[in-house]
């Protein structure tokens, strides 16, 4: 079905996107109470096996799969099967949702009130809703929203209720459960809870996967989960997890379902509720534990203006067509289907590829507001810009972004300066504007005296908050920007040299950005195509030449990624200079942070983003992957062993001191 046209890098401009409807408009006109109590008759799956939530539990516990694992666990541990069964039943109690329409109605009422206060509008593509309506009837549906805020899943259920679609059951992290009352409320609105890590726990995995599969097979309700696993604190999409994706695809692989429809949903916010919270978290200012009282305190957020919110339901992606020619389903023929089977190597590859593609669809359909462009420019100009020049550059950037296929929501018939000043007003808490000069800065400076360290952190909060907006558009510029950087550091115009550099950067940054493994040639071609179309480059048979007018675009593009480059270099430098032989994994982030802080205080580093724990974590993951660092288990501690030669040469290449060459790559 839709997946055949999953992604076409060739014609970003031709991409047709649906129009939006504001659902709050209706809510502002009619009674919320009547809305909450209205007759709800959702479209149903045609193969639905009617079943109550309570029956679900016994189906799961009786299932051949779970019974098999219970016997297996019991014979391995020596515990009685009754004991293990009891344990399974408890796990299920802890996990299971108990979706109730009354709770949904309660939420429908309260959320209507809340949304109207928080948002100017909540925009939904109704064509997407219609497609979903169709998809829901045909095959079991899995909803895959992006995850930027706690709001996401409340909003999803709210919307599905609004449009008379079946309410989803949602895989939620266990941390919500600890919130008294709220956890139970969420449970009653369809959330089921899974532990964050249960690596080796066979029984837990069996209960969990059977629970999800049973709901899917019976068409009980659409399953909703977040491919990214958790909220992205940076607003960049996170590297997708494949565990749950495998669970929802397996019934198709094993022939239990004819097909499963995956529906990527992109939820974007003009202003994110958790904005500064995230920035603080990234800087190591600890996150308040989810608690009910915390939530109540968060009521303050209700008084602020968060602009608009956009929900875009993508085209349903059929697992069947996605898997065609990639998965040989007969690999499941020789084992009874209730016996759990680890996914084979090619299944793994398929899952990861599919997950990446789905996240890319999410990215594609994220609505970008003008502020995203402004934030990008302000970050590149730490000393600020004049309003007029900001407006001018924003307009230039707007055209570039559109040419690269950005889904930009730019108000019609408004002067650019008008648009810019509106955006600045909404985000005034991150800015100082004086005498026509705009600059990122700390606005609510605390009255108490601050140490230099504190001042750096205050500024860093602003920068990281702002970066979270720039990050939203990174996926648009990513490939051309990698090419721009590769051209800068390559020592010739030869296509292979540039490609090598591109490929190197792609490898280094593949934990940072959504770059499908194995797509490097395709990405390179896409980047070339976009820049060529823009008149920045000429791509000849063996050479890539910058055109006369291309300089400013290339400079802009490479500085988009500059903070990341600098950040990774800081991590490299830290690893080289660190003398502690027994550096543990836990100590790594605080240590890099204080190292970066020192550099900033000493005036040797201007890049505040190097303080972000997300960047540091991604850099470490990349270095581990590139084998410049390896993990060694000592006792119950994991320590990091640094290959200083490798790290050094990485830093040199990143710094452009030595060009990328194959031998060096090979050594890495």
């Amino acid at each position, binding site marked *: 079905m839709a997946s055949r046209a999953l992604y076409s890098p060739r014609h970003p401009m031709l991409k047709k996107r649906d129009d939006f409807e504001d659902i709050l408009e209706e809510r502002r006109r009619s009674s919320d109470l009547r809305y909450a109590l209205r007759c709800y008759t959702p479209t149903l799956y045609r193969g639905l096996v009617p079943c109550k939530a309570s029956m679900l539990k016994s189906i799961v516990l009786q299932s051949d799969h779970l019974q098999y694992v219970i016997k297996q666990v019991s014979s391995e541990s020596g515990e009685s099967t009754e004991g293990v069964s009891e344990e399974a039943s408890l796990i299920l109690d802890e996990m299971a949702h108990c979706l109730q329409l009354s709770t949904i109605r309660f939420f429908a009422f309260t959320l209507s009130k809340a949304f109207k206060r928080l948002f100017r509008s909540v925009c939904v593509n109704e064509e997407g809703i219609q497609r979903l309506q169709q998809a829901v009837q045909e095959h079991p549906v899995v909803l895959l929203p992006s995850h930027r805020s706690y709001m996401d899943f409340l909003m999803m259920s709210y919307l599905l209720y609004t449009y008379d679609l079946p309410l989803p059951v949602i895989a939620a992290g266990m941390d919500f459960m600890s919130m008294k009352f709220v956890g139970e409320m969420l449970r009653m609105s369809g959330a089921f809870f899974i532990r964050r890590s249960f690596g080796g726990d066979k029984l837990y995995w069996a209960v969990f996967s059977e629970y999800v599969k049973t709901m899917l097979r019976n068409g009980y309700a659409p399953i909703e989960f977040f491919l990214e696993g958790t909220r992205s604190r940076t607003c960049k999409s996170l590297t997708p997890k494949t565990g749950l994706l495998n669970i929802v695809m397996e019934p198709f692989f094993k*022939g*239990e379902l*004819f097909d499963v429809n995956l529906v990527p949903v992109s939820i974007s916010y003009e202003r994110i509720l958790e904005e500064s919270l995230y920035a603080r978290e990234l800087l190591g200012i600890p996150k308040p534990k989810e608690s009910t009282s915390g939530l109540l305190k968060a009521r303050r957020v209700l008084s602020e203006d968060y602009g608009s919110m956009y929900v875009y339901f993508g085209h349903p992606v059929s697992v069947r067509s996605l898997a065609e020619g990639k998965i*040989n*389903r*007969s690999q*499941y*023929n020789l084992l*009874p*289907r209730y016996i759990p089977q680890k996914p084979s190597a090619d299944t793994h590859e398929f899952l990861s590829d599919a997950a990446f593609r789905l996240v890319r669809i999410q990215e594609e359909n994220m609505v970008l507001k003008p502020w995203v462009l402004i934030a990008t420019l302000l970050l590149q100009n730490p000393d600020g810009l004049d309003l007029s020049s900001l407006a001018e550059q924003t307009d230039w950037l707007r055209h570039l972004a559109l040419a690269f296929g950005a889904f930009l929501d730019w108000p019609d018939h408004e002067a650019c300066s008008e648009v810019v000043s509106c955006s600045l007003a909404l985000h005034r808490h991150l800015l100082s504007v004086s005498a026509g000069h705009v600059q990122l800065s700390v606005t609510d400076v605390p009255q108490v005296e601050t140490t230099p360290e504190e001042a750096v952190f205050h500024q860093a909060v602003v920068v990281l908050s702002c970066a979270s907006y720039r990050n939203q558009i990174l996926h648009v510029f990513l490939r051309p920007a990698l090419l721009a950087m590769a051209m800068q550091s390559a020592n010739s115009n030869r296509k292979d040299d540039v490609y090598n550099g591109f490929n190197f950067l792609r490898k280094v940054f593949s934990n940072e950005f959504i770059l499908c493994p194995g797509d490097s040639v395709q990405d390179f071609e896409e980047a070339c195509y976009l820049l060529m179309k823009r008149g920045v480059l000429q791509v000849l048979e063996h050479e890539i030449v910058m055109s006369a007018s291309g300089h400013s675009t290339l400079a802009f593009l490479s500085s988009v990624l500059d903070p990341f480059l600098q950040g990774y270099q800081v991590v490299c430098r830290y690893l080289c200079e660190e003398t502690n032989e027994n550096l543990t994994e836990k100590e790594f982030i605080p240590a890099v942070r204080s190292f970066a802080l020192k550099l900033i205080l000493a005036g040797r580093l201007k890049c505040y983003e190097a303080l972000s724990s997300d960047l540091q974590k991604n850099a470490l993951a990349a270095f581990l992957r590139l084998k410049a660092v390896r993990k060694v288990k000592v006792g119950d501690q994991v320590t990091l062993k640094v290959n200083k030669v490798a790290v050094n040469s990485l830093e040199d290449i990143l710094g452009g001191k030595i060009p990328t060459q194959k031998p060096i790559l090979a050594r890495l």
Partner: protein
Amino acid sequence: LPLSLSLSLSLSPSPSPSLSLSLSLSPSLSPSLSLSLSLSLSLSPPLSLSLSLFLSLSLQEIMKWNGWGYSDSRFLFNKKGQAEFTGKRYRLSGLILPSLKDWFEGTFGANLQHRSPATPSLNLSAVAPPHLNQPFVEDLKAAGLSVSHDPEDRVFRAHGHCLHEVFALREGRIGRVPDVVVWPSCHNDVEKIVELACKHNVCLIPYGGGTSVSSALECPREETRSIVSLDTSQMNRILWIDEKNLTAHVEAGIIGQDLERQLNERGYCTGHEPDSMEFSSLGGWVATRASGMKKNIYGNIEDLVVHIKMVTPRGVIEKSCLGPRMSTGPDIHHFILGSEGTLGVVTEVTLKIRPVPEYQKYGSVVFPNFQQGVACLREVARQRCAPASIRLMDNEQFQFGHALKPQVSSIFTSFLDGLKKFYITKFKGFDPHHLCVATLLFEGDRGKVLQHEKQVYDIAAKFGGLAAGEDNGQRGYMLTFVIAYLRDLGMDYYVIGESFETSVPWDRVLDLCRNVKERIVRECKERGVQFPPLSTCRVTQTYDAGACVYFYFAFNYRGLSDPVHIYEQVEHAAREEILANGGSLSHHHGVGKLRKEWMKASVSGVGLGMLKSVKEYVDPQNIFGNGNLL
């Protein structure tokens, strides 16, 4: 109206085989028939001869040249638009089927105004002249064998009954056909033919009943040698019956119904009843690993054979004794069973026989849905109490079967039918769009049958099944005998279709049925078929570890430029779906050339290599070059 004449005579030469002849002819055919009659008589050995359906060398006189079965038996819509079945051979013959038209038009979106008639007769000029290997033909003649290169004889033996084969014939398109037809009349004749074929390097394609549905009889396009169709129809005698051991030694060319009838006359049967038994031959069963409807009592062909004699280019292969089981390395019978004419010609087979059962009873059970029905069959298999035959039709097929109900003779019957329907749908609450029916056939001595029947109905009741009478059961079995005739009717009105089958473990039956049916519907839609297809299945055999599933697939091809190609693509996709859902490549139709591409995946590279090395040893010159299987 064609005049039908039926004639039967019976002689009893020594030792005892009877001669019976039953003919059905229309006046227009009689001259050529008498000719062929005299011809065959002159050819047949003087003693112990048995004439039957295949007494004639020119089968095309009583069989359709471009469709299924007897020329006199066909479905048609009469002037009033009512369906009827012509001829006198079947229970349905001469009857009006009042609901078939509505079912046909409703299911396919077909219209009786839109006809797609077949070319009325074979255009001889479309047949390429034979590429003869003169010395070979002369040697055959010198050996006293009957040989023909008459175009009709050759065309008749150039095809089986795959859709594309029949469709091409109806359009008058003739591809590569055998150059020569030769009729051996005994094992020694075959030895002679094979020897000469090796000597002159010609390609031999054994031909039995011609009911293949795997493109097995198609002449390979790449074959440059002269192709000789070796027609076994004259090797049709029962050579002996051993009542002490309950075995019969039979020539492999005998046709199923003749074998069964002749054994019946002696008080015996083989019990092997594939749906094609009216036309398929014993040798064909062996060569394709055939399965019979009553295998639950009698077993499939591999269980029935005690001894096989086959002529190969290397010589004759056979066992030295008639022991009922042997541990002498891999069973050489299993190289022969399913070899699909690639290794040699099966000439004589010793088969198990059984006394004719005292009592036979049909039955049927209605289930609220297919899932319940499958669960019941599974339970019956678990308890190993399957009747001679038990089949479960899905809802679409149940409705299909219903459309074949003949006009009811009395108001009382129709009242009774109405009452039954009311009871099942209203009182018992079965949804007429979900209910499905199992048909049953019990066999044995009367007391045991009745006891057995009760046992099965009791199991069925546990799964919500209601006994639905003998009549429904019998009609269900009739469907399988007339389905191929119905296909010809469909083809007169832009509807094409075919059946295919698989075997699958019990736990995957439901998923496989649902997915394959859905895949068919989807593929049709995607390929631009304008009308929803008929996509239906039944579980036709039960085993300890699984079941055999049979699919019917047909659609209205109006508006399509190349319907056969689309048909083939959909069937291909359906087979992929079967394999992906844990089904086998074939349960009993065989591989032929149609399903060859999946052989390696089905039996592994090593497995295929083993088969190939056998072929290489037995037939290094590829004399048996029909290109099947490997």
